[in-house]
Each structure stands twice: as structure tokens, then as C-alpha cells.
């Protein structure tokens, strides 16, 4: 057990979770207090001792399922899925019977023989009755039938999952469930929209459970095939705050969005605090004397005036062309989430034309909505819709350049891939002379800077700093330092 735990902890560390030695020891002790056959209890015990942040839970769960999947007696029975032990075949027989096809599959050797219609019927029943046993069984058959798993292939299982799900066509299953729910209500009266919505959400949740069951099943088989460590390596994903924004998948982006909100709130709280405590104002004589009365006139507790630090103005100029759009979105999001920390935030977006989009954020209390409007309404195309930093910058200078003052910080977001247009770097030079700071955030890895059509170096000489900003963690650090 201890060896297994050590391997598990090592895997968590490789996945990027900060697990200290003390926590490892705690986990080892905790395991002694938990009956080992209770897999859930074990999971929570390890989770409580090893994982100290909610965003890391997912990575933990994944590693846990891989490391502790097959060794558990409760799920071990599933290991002989191919052979088909008594219980599962019986249940299959029952389900098949319910589906209107008598149990000719009894002893027929697992799910290999079950037909597509029967499988669909089985899943339908499982969903309708919300029966976990039946769901797991259906998942096993579905994987048998559709995943087409080949032993020894070094893949992470997403491919198998995709294949299984495509064949199952869960959307149609959902439709059928809904239709059925409508029919069950009584053919005369239709469901009210509210009821329909609730039923839909219920079935969606059930189908989600099925999807997870299938995922678990695939992973379990992969572990049996290739061993925990090898699999862990191929399914390991970066933690949400370390995901490269430019190359994030859709799921990862969704995950990022979820992290973004608490992140910006945290940042705002921290900055507000820093502002209040960063500097002490001058001694407040009146308050000190007033306060000293309770200590017999001895000024034990000096009072200070509150400092009034000036807040910076921010001009954000963001490239929203296809290549860096997701990055710009996140940055705008974050800047607006903490806009109370700045006296004024104005934002401009460009591709080869440039447009001010501050108005979209005003009045919208949800930055996501504003960003969406920017993408659809802002007028940023001038000629062909390929990034032209030079033109965008010179137009900016011409139209808004005079509004940049000595209290303004200018942030430029983009990869500086200019499609071989003129750089017009003099604009930045001019801005730097008037503005307090000019920063450039580049979502590309530093190694790529200056390669191909990237002309970041031409701009860099006119910026106070050029920052590599690929992950939320880096972005958070930068914005924190800025305010």
C-alpha cells in the first residue's frame, strides 16, 4: 500500500500539484484509519490530505482513478468483462428481456454479441430508470462494441471515447427520453415549458453520468492494458492555471473561464488590500489624542490618515485576429474584472483596422457578454482581415494619441506577427514619451519571438517591458504588478 501511495504521490507531483512531504506522511497515516475496501472513503481521505485546492481536484481524481482503479475488489469483477461473469450476464439478460428480445445472450460471453438496437434500448432503460448498475453495464457493452480498443497503443483514451460516443449518438437518446417523458405525462396535455426544461436537465445529467461511466470504463481497460504509470503519463493534463491559452482545447477554455472568475475576484481583493495597506498616511494628530484618552492621556496607539494613492489609467490595445483571439479575450476579461482598481480603463481592438470598444463594457455587468459583443460588433477590418500592427497603431495614434497622458499605462496585447507589413514602431516610441508605461504582452513562447513574421523586437525597444504571457498564472502576476 505504501509503495502504491508513493507512486501515486509522485504522479501528482508530476502533474504539477504541490504535494509536500508532510502531506505525504499525513496521507499515509490517514490510510490506516480508513477501511481499505471502501474506495470512496479512501479517495476522500487521500484528497483531504494531498490536495489543497479545488482547482486541482480534477487532476487528482484522474490520477486516483488510474492508480486505484483495478486493485479494488468492488470493481475487479469488471476486469473479467470480456468473459462475462454471472452477475453481469444476468443483468444483461434481464435488460435484453426488458428490451423485448429474450435473453439469448445468457452465457454468450459479455457484450460482444449484443446488437446495436439492444444496446440502445438498454441504455434507454438505464437512463429512464436512473439505475447505476444498468448504466455501468451499458457503458461496458458500449465500449466493447464501439471503442475498438487495440492493446498496446499508446493513446490517452480520448480517441476511444470519441469513437464510442459518436456511435452511441447520445443526442438522439436524449431526444427520445424527452419525447417519452412528454408521452408519459398523458397524451392530451403537453408539458409546460418549465416542466420540460426540468425534465431535460434531469436527463442531461443522467446522460452525463453515462458519459462519465464510459470514460471510466475506457480508462480502466487502458490501465489493465498498459499499467498505471504509462497511462498516467499519456492522460496527464496541465492544471487550469498552467494551460497555454493560445493552444487550449474547447474543454480547457471552458475550464479556464470557470477559473477566471474567482481569479479576478481574488486579484481585486488583493489589490484593494494592497492599496489600503501599502503605505501609511501621515500621523493623524487629532485622532491620536482622542484615542489616547482611554489610556490616561498616553498616546499608546498612534493613528494615521488614510493614504490616497492615485489610480492609473489603462489603455488596452488588443489584437483580436484569429491567432490570438482567445488570449485577448482573457486579458480584457481580467482587466475589466479589476477595473475598479483603475481610474479609467479604455480598450481598443484591432485586426488591421482599429476600433474603440470601451462602450461595450460600460453598463454590461458581465464581461463575457461584452467580449462577445466585441467579437460581433466591433469594426476592426480595414482591408483583408489579416493582422496589420503598423496600420492599427498609426490610426490609434492619429485618433486617440492625444488622449494618452502621463498618468496612462498602455498595454498592447498581441503576438506581433505582422504579415510583413510596415511596423510603424515610431508610434510606440511616441506613446512611451508621453505615457507612464508601455507594456507589451505576448502570448507566444519567448523562443518564438522574432521568428518568421514576428517583429516583436522592433517594438520591444520602445516598450518598458515585453512580457511573455501564455498562461493564466503569468497573466495574473502581470496584472497584479501593474495596479
Amino acid at each position, binding site marked *: 500500500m505504501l509503495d502504491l501511495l508513493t507512486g501515486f504521490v509522485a504522479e501528482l507531483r508530476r502533474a504539477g500539484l*504541490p504535494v509536500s512531504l*508532510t502531506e505525504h506522511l499525513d496521507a499515509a497515516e490517514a490510510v*490506516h*484509519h480508513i477501511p481499505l475496501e471502501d474506495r470512496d*472513503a479512501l479517495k476522500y481521505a487521500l484528497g483531504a490530505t494531498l490536495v489543497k485546492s479545488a482547482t486541482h481536484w480534477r487532476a487528482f481524481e484522474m490520477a486516483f482513478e488510474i492508480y486505484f482503479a483495478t486493485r479494488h475488489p468492488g470493481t475487479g469483477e469488471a476486469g473479467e468483462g470480456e468473459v462475462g461473469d454471472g452477475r453481469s450476464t444476468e443483468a444483461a439478460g434481464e435488460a435484453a428481456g426488458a428490451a423485448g428480445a429474450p435473453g439469448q445472450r445468457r452465457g454468450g460471453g459479455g457484450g460482444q454479441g449484443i446488437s446495436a438496437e439492444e444496446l440502445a434500448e438498454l441504455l434507454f432503460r438505464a437512463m429512464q430508470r436512473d439505475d447505476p448498475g444498468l448504466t455501468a453495464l451499458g457503458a461496458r457493452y458500449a465500449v466493447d462494441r464501439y471503442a475498438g480498443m487495440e492493446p498496446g497503443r499508446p493513446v490517452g483514451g480520448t480517441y476511444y471515447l470519441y469513437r464510442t460516443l459518436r456511435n452511441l449518438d447520445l443526442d438522439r437518446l436524449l431526444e427520445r427520453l424527452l419525447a417519452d417523458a412528454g408521452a408519459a405525462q398523458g397524451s392530451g396535455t403537453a408539458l409546460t415549458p418549465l416542466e420540460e426544461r426540468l425534465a431535460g436537465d434531469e436527463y442531461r445529467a443522467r446522460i452525463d453520468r453515462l458519459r462519465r461511466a464510459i470514460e471510466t470504463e475506457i480508462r480502466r481497460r487502458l490501465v489493465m492494458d498498459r499499467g498505471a504509470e504509462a497511462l498516467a503519463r499519456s492522460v496527464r493534463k496541465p492544471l487550469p492555471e498552467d494551460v497555454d491559452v493560445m493552444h487550449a482545447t474547447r474543454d480547457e477554455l471552458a475550464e479556464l473561464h470557470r477559473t477566471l472568475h*474567482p481569479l479576478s475576484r*481574488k486579484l481585486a481583493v488583493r489589490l484593494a*488590500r494592497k492599496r489600503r495597506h501599502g503605505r501609511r498616511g501621515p500621523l493623524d494628530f487629532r485622532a491620536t489624542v482622542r484615542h489616547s484618552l482611554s*489610556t490616561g492621556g498616553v498616546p499608546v496607539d498612534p493613528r494615521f490618515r488614510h493614504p490616497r494613492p492615485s489610480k492609473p489609467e489603462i489603455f488596452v490595445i488588443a489584437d483580436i485576429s484569429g491567432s490570438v483571439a482567445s488570449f485577448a479575450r482573457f486579458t480584457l476579461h481580467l482587466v475589466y474584472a479589476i477595473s475598479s482598481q483603475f481610474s479609467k480603463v479604455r480598450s481598443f481592438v484591432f485586426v488591421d483596422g482599429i476600433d474603440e470598444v470601451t462602450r461595450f463594457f460600460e453598463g454590461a455587468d458581465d464581461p463575457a457578454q461584452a467580449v462577445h459583443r466585441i467579437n460581433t460588433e466591433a469594426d476592426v477590418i480595414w482591408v483583408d482581415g489579416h493582422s496589420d500592427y503598423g496600420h492599427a497603431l498609426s490610426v490609434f495614434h492619429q485618433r486617440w494619441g492625444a488622449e494618452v497622458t502621463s498618468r496612462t499605462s498602455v498595454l498592447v496585447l498581441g503576438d506581433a506577427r505582422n504579415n510583413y507589413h510596415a511596423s510603424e514602431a515610431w508610434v510606440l516610441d511616441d506613446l512611451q514619451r508621453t505615457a507612464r508605461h508601455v507594456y507589451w504582452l505576448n502570448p507566444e513562447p519567448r523562443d518564438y519571438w522574432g521568428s518568421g513574421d514576428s517583429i516583436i523586437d522592433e517594438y520591444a525597444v520602445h516598450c518598458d517591458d515585453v512580457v511573455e504571457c501564455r498562461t493564466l498564472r503569468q497573466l495574473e502576476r502581470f496584472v497584479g504588478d501593474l495596479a
Partner: protein
Amino acid sequence: MSEPSSDAAVGADAAGGVAWDRAALGLADSGPPRFESVPGVRRDLASIGYLADEGIASVVYLADRLAKPVLVEGPAGTGKTQLAKSVAELTGSRLIRLQCYEGLDESKALYEWNYRKQLLRIQAQQVEEAEPSVAGARTPRWKELEEDIFSEDFLLTRPLLEAIRAQEPVVLLVDEVDRVELETEALLLEVLSEYQVSIPELGTVRATRLPMVFLTSNNTRELSEALKRRCLYLHIDYPELDREREIVSARVPGITTELADQVARIVRSLRTLELRKPPSVSETLDWARTLVVLGVESIDATGARDTLNILLKYQTDIERAAKELLSAEA
């Protein structure tokens, strides 16, 4: 009791080891374990109206066995504080609560010298000295006086010290620990890991009975590694449908099963929308209570729309929910 004998042996072994460790460290014993098993915790908590899921029960059980504090995080209104209260009620302990806020310091959290009383004491001394009959060397007098004014009589205990010194069983709740500054967190560390408080003038005060400690955080900032390391971590999220339904049934008197089910399902659907502030458990309960008071037996679209403001706290959220869930009526 359903454990196989081999496991039981392992458990006993480990327990022995732990006791020895603690003796070696000079720590107080936590007394007999408070809980029998994980399902036991769950059952007991349910009996006083707190419906814990597997995760919560496991962590509470472990916190008792390992004598470690529990750091509870999660969205507001999911029963973090209530957990500590319920555990206190269950174990028949006194609940000592330290509400954290910005600017909390040693004198509010640990202990403080009662300097007004000390001043009075010194003044009284001066009066005595002024009388001619009392004359003596100054130095020993000062020494006496110093020992005198830094004795326990002049000590004001604050929650942390109080929890450590308590003779009876206590549950210490450090509420919203994320509100204090990073530096102030350090105050907690000694208490949390060693269950002791060092007072320079008096020495170290050790716990005679280990308290159960719960810290809650709303996650407005990242807590320090040092603090997290010393705690078991528990994240309480919005409950699953079944559990929420049970919570509603258990906490709202006079609610019918159908209504509870409907409430739980509507709330679940609301949480899937992208709202600024999804409804929490406490808001769900408020809503359910309102419906019961209004005598609603089954929620329809208009009824839902009229009472939505109890569940959601932002106008945009309310509009959005009404549009998404109840739109076709309009």
C-alpha cells in the same frame, strides 16, 4: 464492525503508533475517538439535521482520528460554518468561534494584557508608596510588581487561547480565514500544528484536551502553503440533486416531498445557467420556506417568477433565469 479482521489489526497498530508519537512530542491526547466510522459520522450528523455526503463525513472522521484541523472551502452558503456547529452539537462540545476580518491581530485572536487593569494596579502601588509607613528598596518592589501585573489575573483570553485552555471538549471555528492578511495567518500556525500558545511573559500554554478545529474560507484569496499544509482540506460544493432534496426536506418543516423535489430540480437547473451568483443551499432553503409559508403546493411558472428574487440576488440573474426557464409563458 463489518471490517475484516486483518484490516482491524492494521488499524489498531496504527492507532498505537500514533499515540506513541504524540506522547513523544509532548502533545496532549485528544481523548477517546469521537466517531466510530465514516458511515457513523454520516448517520450521526444526519440525526441532528446536517446531511453530509461521503466526502464531508470522511474528512470529519479523519480530522478526529489524525487530530488535525480541517480547512473548509467552497462557495458561500453551502454549509461550511454549519458543519462546525453541527459537529459541536453532535459531540456535545462548546463552540468557540473566531470571526476573522481584516486587521485582526494577536490581541483579538490569541490573548491580550488587560492594560487598564495593569495601570490601575500600578497607580494603586504608587499610592501605597506615597504613604510614609511603607518604605523599602525600590528594586524588589518593581520585581514583585512586574510578576504581579503579568500574571493570569491580568490576561484576557481571546478565542484561540480559550480553546486551548478549555477543560471541557470544544470545537474551535475560525470563520472566513481568508479575510485576514497573509501575515496574520502566521498567528494561527502554532495553534493549529502544536495546539499550544506561547506567551512571552507566562510561557507556553498547552492544550489539555485537543479541540476539533474547523477553518472556513470563501476563497477570496489563496491561503498560504504553510497553513494549508497543516490542515485537512475539504471542498464543499453545491450538493447533488438527491442530497439537496433531502436537505430541503430535513430543514424545512412542513414541506411535501413533491415540492422539495421540485425545488431541488429548479435550483439545479438554475445552477447550470451562467449566473453571477448561483443560488446557494441557504438560499434554496429560504425559497422553500417562503413557498411553504405562501401555501404553494406545486410551483408553476408565475409562482416561480414572483419568488425568484429570494433565490437570486442580481437583477440580471433574475431576468436571465426568467428568460431561460420560464420564457415561453411570456
